[in-house]
């Protein structure tokens, strides 16, 4: 019994350390150009739509500026179309992961403020990933004939989280890494 406990604990601990080492090495050696190159570009029209949807969600007073003063000016189908459907959702999830690495890039230059901002970005990413998972589950359930009404809210949350992550990251680069800000703005 004791032998197996030592073997299992040892192997699990070795696997844990290896995972940590690989992850830590990745964060430590991130190369800005390489990471930026892995971002999936989002068409300008879609990016604009993401901003609009997010503002509608995060700043309700912004609807006063619209022709039709209503907080439900977009239906879930419209939001789905605006973000580019399934492919668009995949792009947002992928870029969210890349943005976490990009925040880690700045962490090497500035610790205090970047730590706080990168944790905010990480929390937004967590909400985004949770939302994406809910949407995927709901879409799978729909193929089996079940309808989940929460999806509409998750969709808006995903878009808002992405928008917040993007804004936070761009501002972080503008204030802490302005030499690379222009390049980031070009692709994000």
């Amino acid at each position, binding site marked *: 019994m004791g032998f197996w406990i*030592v073997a299992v604990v040892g192997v699990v601990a070795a696997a844990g350390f290896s995972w940590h080492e690989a992850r830590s090495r990745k964060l*430590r050696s991130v190369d800005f150009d390489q990471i930026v190159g892995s971002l999936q570009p989002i068409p300008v029209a879609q990016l604009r739509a993401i901003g609009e949807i997010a503002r509608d969600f995060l700043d309700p007073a912004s609807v006063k500026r619209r022709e039709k003063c209503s907080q439900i000016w977009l239906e879930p189908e419209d939001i789905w179309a605006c973000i580019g459907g399934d492919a668009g959702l995949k792009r947002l999830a992928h870029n969210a992961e890349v943005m976490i690495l990009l925040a880690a890039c700045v962490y090497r230059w500035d610790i205090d403020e970047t730590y706080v901002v990168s*944790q905010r970005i990480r929390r937004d990413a967590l909400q985004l990933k949770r939302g994406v998972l809910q949407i995927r589950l709901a879409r799978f359930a729909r193929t089996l004939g079940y309808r989940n009404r929460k999806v509409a809210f998750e969709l808006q949350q995903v878009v808002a989280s992405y928008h917040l992550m993007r804004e936070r990251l761009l501002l972080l680069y503008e204030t802490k890494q302005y030499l690379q800000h222009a390049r980031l703005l070009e692709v994000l």
Partner: protein
Amino acid sequence: MNVSTLAGALWAAGFIEHAALLLVLLALRRWKRFPFFTSYIAFNVIRTVMLFCAFRFAKSLYASLYWSAAALDFILQVLIIFEVMRAIMPPGEWGEDARRRFRVLSSAGVVVAFGLTLAIHNKMPHSYSEWIDWSQLFSSTLSVVLLLAMAFSTTALGLVWSRHVAALGTGLAVWGLVDFFVEGAYQYFGPRWHGVYLDYFRILAYQAVVLYWIASFSRRENSRILSAGQHQVLNEIQSQAEAQADLLGRRKH
């Protein structure tokens, strides 16, 4: 009790390596950032000399000196883990979330290490030698569990380990794992399993870690924090760029 040539060579090599690492830590001022780690290495230099002297001139003192040093060794190792955490965690209220995560995980780690030691050892210790076996296994298990708690509580938050901190953490993890496997093997197969070779393996692994620390701490930290002067130069470039952008904007209109 005679010391074999191999054991003597390992003893001498251990002393030279520790002395070299201590020199690196003091000469390159690494001790300022890692005071407990430096104390631990200094302690190892003194311990080697004292144990060697006790072995040659006062053999009756050797055992008590050896076990007292082992207790201090363990306390210093735990302090080093907290030192690494302090070096990684951001200061102030914002870092409280990360610190609390480590506190919760490490408290749970103490309970887990105690449970694992009981499960591996199979009974509570009674005699002096049983207490020694038990505490050695507990200390190696606790080191591994605390290091895992530290790794998970920082990696989960995406905190970047600098070169020196990463070297210290990796070295401790490798050494902790080898120590845990060797202690586990001794508990299960008995202290005479494969004679002293298992112990030699543990010593060689530790010496390899010390060599790795010498190489890592001799190199500069990979920090890219800008100096005040560099900040000023960049600010000037930024102001010039903004002024030119303004000018261009006005010309367009």
